């Protein structure tokens, strides 16, 4: 992993987030968050519940407008652009609570993304994708008939169908057993190897350990740590607010 | 003229809170749009007319009677319609159509039974002459209706916030599935709310002959739309919001009548659209919504 990481370090950032802030009514969900992601890098975004991870992704993917700070993608400011524009530019995501098109089949779900956000993907691509995420047996099932875990995979497939350059994944691991987690982790690594930048939000540290190159730890809307997991577990503040007493695993 | 319009608007608005109250409860608890609400108000009014002309029962006594009578009718009606409806794919939308059908049935049956003409109760049935209030003179019926409406709102408030059934009702309002999972008998609670909703509509109806001059079987649609204005302006699910909505509606209607009378008919619609666009959750919005 270290050889990959060194290659990445030299590339220029794909996404740069600086002093990002977001308020909901009187509640300051994000105070100031800064980080960047390079092509081929997997950046983990972790932190206690309610620390603002999902909000960060929502801002990057255009669901909300930031109240302060800057988001730069490929060198241009994208704060406040609508989601579909961002999808066309190569930013996509999966959702913490999966959001497939429930009245469409698995195949149609992906077809829509190919047709509207396709960036050059085609039908062969769809087939490959379905196999890649092991959805190929479910192709003609309605999305509403899938379990939440399968729906998460479908979300991911739909995001991948737009050939993103930056993929944000929000808690893919919740509800998967360790074996499945390993499988998904390998898939994400493969994507990174192909040059995609990944921003991974996750609570399961084993999974984070398998997937990420580097971590950003959030706490109450601020980034309090940046570096590899091996350092994070030694960081007193991170342990106090997030990890708890050292892990015996 | 200005003061008179405002005070009259407040009284009238208070009455319209009562008209909307039952609709609000039903929508809040079941997320179904009871388009037949106005028809239940109309039925309440005809019940009061019948009670008065046949047995000389005062409209106030009729209001108490019909509260219970309609609540009891609400129970079987709920079980007949709502559980089936909630099993469909888009119950919120389909409820609009289902209850439109019910409204047609009620209107036609009523017409068959009592005929299409206006009915009313003599003004003296509800107290004597004009009443002086804040330096102005108003029909006593207005004041009595406003008071009755205040009492109804208070009772509903007490029910929702200080009884066990009320607490469960609010739980169902917040999340029907979670309520089911928590072991609440969702159907029984909803049926109760449905019954109370109809009962409140009927109570409002008992005062309608005095507030609206007269009633015909066809009056329901209008009342339903006015009720929607009131509850949406005030925000759904909160009895206090309904009062606020009613007051705003009443005062602005009276001001409209005073200064732009021929456009007064436009008011409920514009108010509704404006509020929905500016604050889709109503004036009392989310924060106070379930207080």
């Amino acid at each position, binding site marked *: 992993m270290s050889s990959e990481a060194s290659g990445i370090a030299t590339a220029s950032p794909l996404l740069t987030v600086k002093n990002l802030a977001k308020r909901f009514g009187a509640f300051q969900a994000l105070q100031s968050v800064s980080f960047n992601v390079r092509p081929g890098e997997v950046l983990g975004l972790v932190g206690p519940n309610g620390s603002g991870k999902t909000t960060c992704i929502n801002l990057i993917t255009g669901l909300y407008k930031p109240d302060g700070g800057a988001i730069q993608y490929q060198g241009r400011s994208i704060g406040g652009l609508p989601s579909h524009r961002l999808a066309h530019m190569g930013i996509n995501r999966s959702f913490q609570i999966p959001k497939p098109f429930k009245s469409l089949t698995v195949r149609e779900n992906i077809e829509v993304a190919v047709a509207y956000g396709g960036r050059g993907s085609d039908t062969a691509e769809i087939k490959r994708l379905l196999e890649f995420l092991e959805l190929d047996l479910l192709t003609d099932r309605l999305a509403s008939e899938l379990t939440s875990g399968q729906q998460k995979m479908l979300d991911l497939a739909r995001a991948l169908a737009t050939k993103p350059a930056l993929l944000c994944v929000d808690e893919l691991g919740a509800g998967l057993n360790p074996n499945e987690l390993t499988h998904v982790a390998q898939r994400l690594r493969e994507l990174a190897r192909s040059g995609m930048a990944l921003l991974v939000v996750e609570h399961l540290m084993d999974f984070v350990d398998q997937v990420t190159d580097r971590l950003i730890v959030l706490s109450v809307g601020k980034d309090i740590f940046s570096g590899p997991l091996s350092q994070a577990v030694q960081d007193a503040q991170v342990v106090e607010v997030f990890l708890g007493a050292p892990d015996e695993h | *003229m200005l003061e*008179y*319009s405002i005070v*009259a*608007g407040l009284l*009238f608005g208070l009455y319209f809170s009562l008209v909307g109250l039952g609709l609000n409860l039903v929508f809040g608890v079941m997320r179904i749009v009871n388009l037949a609400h106005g028809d239940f108000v109309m039925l309440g009014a005809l019940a009061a007319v019948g009670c008065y002309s046949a047995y000389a029962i005062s409209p106030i006594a009729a209001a108490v009677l019909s509260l219970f009578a309609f609540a009891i009718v609400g129970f079987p009606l709920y079980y007949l319609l709502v559980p089936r409806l909630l099993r469909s794919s888009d119950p919120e939308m389909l409820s609009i159509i289902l209850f439109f059908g019910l409204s047609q049935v009620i*209107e*036609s049956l009523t*017409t068959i039974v*009592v*005929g*299409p*003409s*206006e*009915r*009313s109760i*003599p*003004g*003296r049935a509800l107290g004597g*002459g*004009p009443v002086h209030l804040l330096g102005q*003179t*108003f*029909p*006593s*019926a*207005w004041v009595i209706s406003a008071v009755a409406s205040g009492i109804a709102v208070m009772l509903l408030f007490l029910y929702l916030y200080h009884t066990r059934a009320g607490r469960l009702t609010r739980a169902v309002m917040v999340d029907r599935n979670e309520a089911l999972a928590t072991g609440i008998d969702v159907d029984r609670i909803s049926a109760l709310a449905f019954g109370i909703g109809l009962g409140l509509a009927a109570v409002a109806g008992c005062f309608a002959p*005095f*507030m*609206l*001059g*007269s009633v*015909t*079987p*066809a009056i329901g649609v*209008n009342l339903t739309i006015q009720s929607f204005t009131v509850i949406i302006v005030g925000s759904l699910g909160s009895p206090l919001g309904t009062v606020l909505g009613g007051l705003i509606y009443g005062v602005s209607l*009276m001001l409209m*009548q*005073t200064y732009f*009378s*021929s456009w*007064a*008919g436009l008011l409920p619609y514009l108010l509704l659209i404006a509020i929905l666009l500016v604050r889709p959750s109503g004036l009392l919005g989310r924060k106070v919504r379930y207080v």
Partner: protein
Amino acid sequence: ATAPSEIKLGTLYASSGPFAAISMPVYQGLKLWVNQENAQGGVMVKPFNKRIPIKLISYDDQSNTATAATLYNQLVTQDKVDLLVADSGSVLTALAVPIAREHKILLFDQTGTGGTFFTKDNPYIVLLSDPVSTIWPKYVADFLTHEGPKLGIKRVALLYATNDFTGTQANAVRGFIKASGAPIELVYDKGVPTNTTNYTVLINNIQAAKPDAVIQMGYPGNDIAFLRNLHDSGTHFNWLFAIYPGLETEHLEKTVGADGLKYVYTYTPSSAVEYHAESGMSLPQFREAWNKAYPDGKVAFGFNSVAGYTSGLIIQNALAVTESMDQLALRKAVFSLSGKLKTLDGTFALDENGAQVGEITPLGQLVPDGKGSVKFTVVYPSDVATGKAIYPAPSK
């Protein structure tokens, strides 16, 4: 030609919806006439010189205009009626006008008084039972402009519901007053939506304009609400006109109470002016027949029920003189009655476009009859007057 076994008369009614309250009395009045004639073996038809039974074909349009249009067409094209009678009221009549014209069948318009129906280029319509709305308020205006100044009436308030029927009348009042040149000032002139049910604030506003006379024009629901609000709020006007206290007196007495009708000016219906009905029943006879036919009292007896019955009488008289059953011949027959036929509704007269201008109702005033109820005094014009206007109206 051989005589048909029946004459098909097709019409519509609205048993429900907003127009039901005016449509049902008209329809039942017409039906009463049909039943009466059929009881005598039918109606006399001149071309065949014998009585032929009437077959009444009627559909319920539910106040729904699209439905009404289809049903009119059904009457014309499928049932092939000999006589086409419109539903009451302008809105539901409007749909029949082009249909009748297209199919070249004469439309017997009962109470659709809208001015736009009667044009030179359309011979297929005649208005039977109500005067066209532009001339209704003639005597109201004449009284105010001629007698008003003598009584000290200078300031007039006009409040009307903004629908075709009352809006047209309000326009007419305004026009008459202006044209008269009398020293009368309109100090309040406002329209309100027809679904207005609450007049307390409006009454207060009118009072603030200090009028000597108030004209309020609305449908029955409006009049009931207005008069009740007026009575309940303790406001008093010296001179007040409303339409329905006269047209539907009993109905308003039931809903408003006699107290609220005292000293109100209104259109005098046929009951108060002794029109010597030369054709058909007199008013007392008609009322007796009505009560016998419709004992449940669900549909109000009054002006509209008389209108329906009158429609029947006019058709009856037209059939008795027509040259043939051809539609234009029927029209000619109806025109031949103009100015001559007197029914319980007054003298029937048509202008050249088929609009009814005969049955103008005199101005009446409701006064206490000493038995807790009210009775009519005809106050204007003087040739039919039965008493003097009580002005100012005594307050309680």
